[in-house]
């Protein structure tokens, strides 16, 4: 899921300077799990904004804020509030913010910082393990991603900074290459550890990414 944290309230207030009526949008998926934009956080934000003198015209926690059609439907159903609002505050990831962008022409501002695609270790503890590089190489590294989990994204073994199996950048983090080595050793696959890997093809996905599987399917069908 997308891991996000709420921005400091002062920063949110600053971004709403001059905007009196605010429509708050939360997200029922990732931002709920990360407690940056679920029902409780949206209610709390409403109270704080009102205390700061803002008028909150509506709050909505979308099923998933990144779903653009759903967002448009919500604003249609809530037309009166959406019309009355000067600004939309989105407590969700940057995808959610821009999904709101598609549903209104008014001022839209983010209430959270998007951090990474994260695995849930336990409640409110997340770790980045995939960075969406467009070309999965996990089969070559014992299913431990060096692109993401090595601070330098090294593809051919540890740097000189390995320290007691930890990373020189952050001694609380495991050196991905020690994890990879141990895993490949336990699978008796150290021979493939010796494969020299070329650099990533950074154009495996052209940014900004786009996938229209249905259009692709139709093209295939027509051919």
């Amino acid at each position, binding site marked *: 899921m997308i891991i996000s944290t709420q921005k400091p309230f002062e920063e949110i207030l600053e971004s709403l300077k001059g905007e009196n009526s605010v429509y708050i949008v939360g997200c029922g998926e990732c931002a709920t799990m990360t407690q940056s934009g679920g029902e409780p956080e949206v209610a709390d934000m409403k109270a704080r904004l009102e205390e700061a003198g803002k008028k909150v015209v509506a709050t909505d926690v979308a099923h998933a804020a990144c779903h653009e059609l759903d967002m448009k439907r919500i604003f249609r159903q809530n037309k009166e509030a959406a019309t009355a609002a000067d600004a939309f505050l989105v407590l969700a990831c940057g995808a959610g913010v821009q999904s709101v962008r598609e549903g209104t022409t008014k001022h839209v501002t983010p209430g959270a910082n998007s951090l990474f695609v994260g695995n849930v270790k336990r409640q409110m503890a997340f770790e980045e393990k995939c960075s969406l590089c467009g070309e999965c190489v996990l089969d070559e590294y014992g299913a431990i991603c060096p692109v993401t989990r090595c601070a330098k994204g*090294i593809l051919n*073994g540890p*740097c*000189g*900074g*390995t320290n007691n*199996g930890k990373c*020189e*950048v952050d001694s609380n983090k495991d050196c991905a290459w020690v994890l990879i080595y141990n895993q490949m050793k336990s699978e008796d696959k150290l021979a493939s550890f010796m494969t020299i890997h*070329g650099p990533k093809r950074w154009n495996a996905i052209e940014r900004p990414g786009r996938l229209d599987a249905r259009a692709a399917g139709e093209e295939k069908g027509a051919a």
Partner: protein
Amino acid sequence: MSKYREACESGRFVVSGEIGPPKGTSVDTMLHHIELLKDLVDGLNVTDNQSAVMRLGSMAVSHEIVSRGGDAIYQMTCRDRNRLALQNDLLSAHFLGLRNVLALTGDHVSVGDHKDAKEVYDFESVQLIQCIKRMNEGFDWAGNELEGGTDFYIGAVVTPESDPIEPQKLKFEKKIEAGAQFFQTQAVYDMDNFRRFMEYARGVTEGKDVKMMAGLVVLTSVGMAKYMNKFVPGVFVPDDLLEEMASVPKEEAVKKGMEICARHIRFCIDNDVCDGVHVMAIGKEEIVPEILQMAGLLK
């Protein structure tokens, strides 16, 4: 052929030093160090934004060394440049007469003085080595034929005190496979352990033309030694050396560090441990000639 390569291939014991370019335009001290060392050593490494701290460039200083009649080992990290910029710099370096390159991944920006910079790492050390080899064969990374290939002597680093050591050894082997022709190690102090590492390394390099240089950083105080043990990954100063450094008054600590360094050089020569040494005095290069004298390397 570069002087450094010639020295390496001659089979005699090779000595290199190191120049750390300044942060700014005041180059007098650096030029003094270059003048002092250029004729006493076979080559001078020039660091590339060492420790991710922004400084005067490695290529410009390497060129200065060569134009003053010395030989430079141009250090190149992958942290600050993508593959276009790396190859562009390699061609530029070649144009300026540089022939030895030390390929490094490079310290992470988070340890340096521009912590909010974007680190690149489009390549890392193994891939940079491969790339230089390919350019030596007349092609760029993308496979295009160069209008004149390069002629670089390709260097790399290895960390004999890495913990754990096994994955580090495999990476060392990959660097050789990729085309590394000489190695300078991370600083070593436990010479018995280094000798054991070299026994392994000799086994790997047997039948291949790969030269191994011990990296020696001169200790200048017991505090420095303890600091390295605590904060520099892959560097280990054993207890007996800590005690030896602590056994003399503060004002004699540098002298003691020089003695230890000279002794380690002698150890490498007398026991035929490696092919040479790379002596790093980290800003105190004026003490290097005396160390070489103490080790019996100066006539």
